[in-house]
């Protein structure tokens, strides 16, 4: 596989974490423009753990995931009263708050004679675990794929259990959900915790692939894209947001014919899909039809 293809596939994988993160909240009825905050938290926490504290990679990534999930839950706690546009604005405000904090966050320690760690707006260099461990880009693509498979596996388990059904019931009618005995606030906090953890996993993996992260990378447009992926791909299955990423990065960004017009085509595509299929390409009805066809 050539370097370009590996790079494109790695990007698709990494953005899929963000897209799934926003999708989890979407099916729970919450519109979040702020999942890039958890991506950034995962990137910085994972990077600090491996580059500054010299933790093993898996432990460093795990630290990023746990921190993202915990902060996701803590942010969700006071925002359970909000819904719709108010919730969306709150998530956007939090994401910008995180980015502003990272702009002034400096935590550098001497490692092997060099100062290592985040340095405010100058970014965070030398997150070199992959290079030091001799992991080739193809091998790292395998790590990303394994992480993505774990997330899809977790969602699949929740779909076989009660978790996904509970999220969908709360997303569709929170008042009815309450009258069915579901603790709506607790489910919303759980969804935000899960979404925070998934985005942070993507962020931690991203930091170790890029070796350099800076606050400017985690701007509003990343959050808008992550939300749009689910809306394009569809809310009926976890593969919906991944399809959205494939359309954007796999098609629009990677094919040269589209590259100059990516944002125009992407914006138009979002509008078109929302008009024709308000719940995305793989919406609930389509997914049910596919499942019925597979059962035959």
């Amino acid at each position: 596989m050539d370097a370009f293809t590996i790079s494109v596939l790695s990007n698709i994988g990494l953005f899929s974490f963000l897209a799934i993160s926003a999708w989890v909240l979407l099916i729970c009825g919450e519109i979040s423009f702020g999942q890039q905050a958890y991506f950034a938290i995962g990137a910085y926490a994972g990077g600090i753990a491996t580059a500054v504290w010299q933790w093993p990679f898996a432990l460093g990534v795990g630290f990023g995931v746990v921190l993202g999930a915990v902060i996701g839950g803590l942010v969700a706690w006071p925002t359970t009263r909000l819904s719709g546009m108010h919730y969306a604005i709150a998530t956007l405000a939090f994401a910008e708050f995180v980015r502003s904090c990272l702009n002034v966050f400096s935590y550098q320690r001497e490692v092997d004679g060099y100062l290592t760690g985040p340095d405010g707006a100058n970014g965070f260099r030398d997150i070199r675990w992959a290079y030091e461990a001799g992991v080739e880009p193809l091998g790292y693509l395998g790590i990303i794929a394994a992480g993505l498979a774990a997330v899809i596996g977790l969602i699949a388990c929740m779909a076989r259990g009660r978790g996904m059904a509970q999220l969908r019931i709360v997303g569709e009618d929170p008042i009815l959900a309450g009258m069915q005995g579901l603790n709506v606030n607790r489910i919303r906090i759980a969804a935000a915790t899960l979404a925070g953890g998934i985005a942070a996993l993507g962020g931690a993996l991203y930091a170790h692939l890029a070796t350099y992260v800076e606050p400017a990378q985690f701007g509003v447009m990343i959050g808008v894209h992550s939300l749009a992926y689910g809306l394009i791909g569809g809310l009926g299955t976890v593969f919906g947001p991944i399809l959205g990423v494939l359309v954007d990065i796999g098609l629009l960004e990677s094919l040269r014919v589209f590259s100059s017009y990516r944002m125009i085509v992407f914006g138009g595509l979002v509008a078109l899909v929302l008009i024709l299929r308000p719940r995305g390409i793989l919406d609930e009805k389509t997914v049910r039809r596919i499942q019925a066809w597979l059962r035959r």
Partner: protein
Amino acid sequence: MAAAVEIQGLSCRFGGVKALDAVDIRLSPGEVLGLIGPNGSGKTSLFNLLTGHHNPEAGAILLDGLDLAGQSPSQIARFGIARTFQNLRLLRRLSVYENVRAARHACAPLRDAFWLSPAARRQERDSLMNLLDIFGLSEKAQKTPAELTLVQMRHLEIARLLAADPKLVLLDEPAAGMTSAETQAITEVIATHVLPGRSAIVIEHKMQLVAALCPRIAVLNAGRKIADGPTGQVLADSAVRQSYFGAKPC
């Protein structure tokens, strides 16, 4: 297991409108009460208070001696109160099967959120499909509610209510929009499958259904209870006829 219900001095206000004014109702375990009254008399508001959707201004709601006033809807549902809605409230993007299954998630342990064993899934599926079968909906299990007729949607709401196995059922105009024959059919379904072993309050404008299901009725008018007693006796009451039917006293 049917529950004893005691509603004491229940009052509720929406801005300047007093929706309920010191309403007292007592229900013995297994008793079925018809609740009638003109539109805007406070019938659905009473259900909204009983299910925790609104909080009372004053008064108490005791279910087997336990005060429910001020509890959250989810806690109240777990205590064993389930309801249907005058304006159908179904999960329109979920399948018929998932709509009924919605009533089974409440008391499940946390681990069930992440995994249900094949045996547990099969057991739940069998039990819910049997329930759908009672209402003639098993063939439609994978359809969405939008693909059902109005009567089937009403049946689906009742099936969901039964899936929760409640102690007290609150039926809000279960025959709304139905023909006389359909009303007769749903009356039989409710009498056979919903009421046995449960306490119930039934709001309905169709006296055909009320007379068949409810040995006792209470009448609300402008938020106040104006009558409560055996069905025949209350319906013959001149004040009730005046407020509800608009008939002039003889």
